[in-house]
């Protein structure tokens, strides 16, 4: 029988399960074609959960140590909830028929994927981890093709699905070797096994790494990202670009760093190499992009590279800095996507040229976009700066100066394309007059992101401390 400890450990999952049921039932109960009220229910529910998550305290491991509600898990879940709330809020105003009539499915899929993330963040068992991973992934395939009448959307869904399934197979294949090598699916046992000497374990961890690398979209596992981001509905993409990535990172930490001690350093060169490739490729490929979403997709890949820099440090501070990075990335990247959504709804175009003269048409929206871009570019006084700085700091502490230099120099390339967007907004004249109309919920979501970016930019300390606190027990 589940005791109070178990309840404590599962409170968020139980809450989310209840919300799923509620949404399901509500969806059944609604008459008529307009089911957008489901979105409100889901949003409020996520908001309540988000508040709850800040009351949740770590609990001892449950289910024979398979499931753990530690600081890292709670940190990650808060992040998922905030990101999900912003994403749901932004899609509330979406009046496309698919969203109006199929709001039930949409929100059920998002919430179930969120459930997968929740469990993934807490999973300390390979089987649970894999199932959670799949629970997180499969709804995403569906969601990316949610606009099933659009040629691009379904194409994107197929690509996402194919690459995702192959990666899942690779992941499962790797996990099977891990299990075979250590005769246990418990991550604590895996961590205690002697790694490099055991070829099966090495093979398993490498193959599994490829699977995770797909999820976080590291080069060259990233290739689904631009197409999917470009074609799927923007609020969903905003969410897709942050939440599953964060979950992927948490899983990476669990499998590769938690409890392994000094062995963590064996991953350093590999991850550093992958980070370099990802940063370079992401930034270079972003350069020629004319579609803002695609540009942000590639820039997002580069950001994953920066997070991998923190991972490569293979230290508690490195993990903490990646977590911090993820939070700033949630606000900065989601914000940028949401502004694209706002402009695209008004202008009917996602090209960077749609931003021409935005500063003179809607100065506040332009300013918000500028802030997001600066944050993504790693400019001081907005959150992204600290994020980059901290991962660099972590990498430098681990002696990876060359990696820091590569990362820092490539930041300059990144600024090029961010500044191109800034140029469109601030330097070029508008093509037509008039303000850009933004729906209230979308505006609120953008505002939340601005708030996050600015507050973290001005006062990053509490979050940094929290991240350090939750990452310390991993080692």
């Amino acid at each position, binding site marked *: 029988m589940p005791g109070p400890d178990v309840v404590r450990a599962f409170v968020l999952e139980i809450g989310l399960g209840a919300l799923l049921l509620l949404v399901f039932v509500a969806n059944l109960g609604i008459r008529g074609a307009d089911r957008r009220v489901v979105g409100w229910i889901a949003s409020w529910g996520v908001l309540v959960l988000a508040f709850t998550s800040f009351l949740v305290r770590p609990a001892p491991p449950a289910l024979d140590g398979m*499931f753990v509600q530690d600081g890292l898990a709670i940190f990650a879940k808060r992040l998922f909830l905030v990101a999900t709330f912003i994403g749901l809020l932004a899609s509330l105003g979406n009046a496309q028929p698919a969203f109006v009539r199929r709001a039930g499915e949409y929100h059920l899929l998002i919430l179930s994927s969120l459930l997968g993330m929740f469990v993934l963040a807490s999973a300390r068992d390979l089987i649970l981890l894999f*199932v959670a991973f799949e629970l997180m992934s*499969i709804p995403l395939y*569906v969601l990316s093709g949610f606009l099933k009448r659009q040629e691009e959307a379904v194409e994107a869904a197929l690509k996402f699905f194919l690459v995702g399934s192959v990666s899942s197979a690779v992941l499962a294949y790797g996990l099977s070797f891990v299990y075979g090598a250590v005769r246990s699916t418990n991550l604590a046992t895996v961590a205690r096994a002697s790694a490099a000497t055991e*070829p099966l374990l090495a093979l398993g961890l490498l193959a599994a790494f490829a699977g995770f690398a797909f999820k976080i979209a590291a080069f060259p596992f990233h290739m689904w990202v631009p197409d999917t981001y470009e074609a799927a509905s923007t609020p969903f993409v905003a969410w897709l670009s942050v939440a599953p990535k964060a979950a992927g990172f948490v899983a990476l930490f669990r499998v590769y760093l938690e409890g392994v001690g000094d062995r963590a350093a064996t991953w350093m060169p590999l991850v550093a190499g992958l980070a370099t490739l990802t940063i370079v490729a992401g930034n270079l490929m972003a350069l020629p992009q004319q579609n803002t979403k695609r540009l942000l997709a590639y820039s997002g890949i580069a950001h994953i590279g920066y997070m991998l820099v923190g991972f490569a440090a293979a230290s508690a501070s490195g993990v903490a800095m990646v977590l911090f990075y993820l939070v700033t990335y949630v606000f900065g990247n989601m914000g940028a996507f949401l502004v694209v959504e706002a402009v695209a709804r008004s202008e009917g175009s996602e090209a960077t040229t749609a931003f021409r003269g935005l500063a003179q048409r809607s100065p506040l929206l332009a300013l918000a976009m500028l802030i997001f871009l600066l944050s993504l570019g790693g400019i001081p006084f907005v959150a992204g700066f600290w994020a980059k700085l901290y991962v660099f700091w972590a990498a430098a502490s681990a002696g990876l100066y060359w990696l820091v230099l590569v990362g820092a120099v490539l930041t300059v390339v990144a600024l090029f394309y961010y500044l191109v967007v800034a140029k469109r907004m601030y330097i070029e004249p508008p093509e037509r007059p008039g303000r850009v109309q933004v729906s209230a919920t979308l505006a609120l979501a953008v505002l939340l992101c601005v708030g996050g970016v600015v507050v973290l930019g001005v006062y990053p300390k509490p979050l940094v401390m929290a991240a350090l606190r939750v990452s310390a027990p991993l080692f």
Partner: protein
Amino acid sequence: MTLETAGFWVVAVVLLASSLAVVLTPNLFHAVLYLAAALVATGVVFLLLDSPFLFAVQLLLYAVGVMAIVVFAIMLTERLVGERITQTSRHLVNGGVVAAGVFIGIAGFLIRVPRSLPRAPLVGDATPALGRALVGPFALTLELLGVLLVVALLGALYFARADE
């Protein structure tokens, strides 16, 4: 040569042959049938590994279930398109090289595994223990799987229905 060894070689040949057939045959329908053969051969491998329960699962749930869906899909698309279900391959050499490369990579690790790993003694039918594990420590996992299946169904339905 024990029975198991002989069985292994036979099954291995069948499995690999049918697998190759899956990826090489031009007729999609045949490919599906070869996949069924491969899956059955896999089931036999499970039998060789003393896991009759999984053999059953493989046969019933997997082979039959998957086959049904696939055939259904082929029929559906064929009906829509009204043409022969042939399929061609692209960049066979490239694909072969890369796939071989991956295999060599894996094999590179496998050859370093000690050959003499003994097979653990058989402990009777594992099926009840399996059941206990599923409702014990893996209860949450099982529940999640349930959600997963529901959601997958939901998604599949969402795509498959022709309304709107």
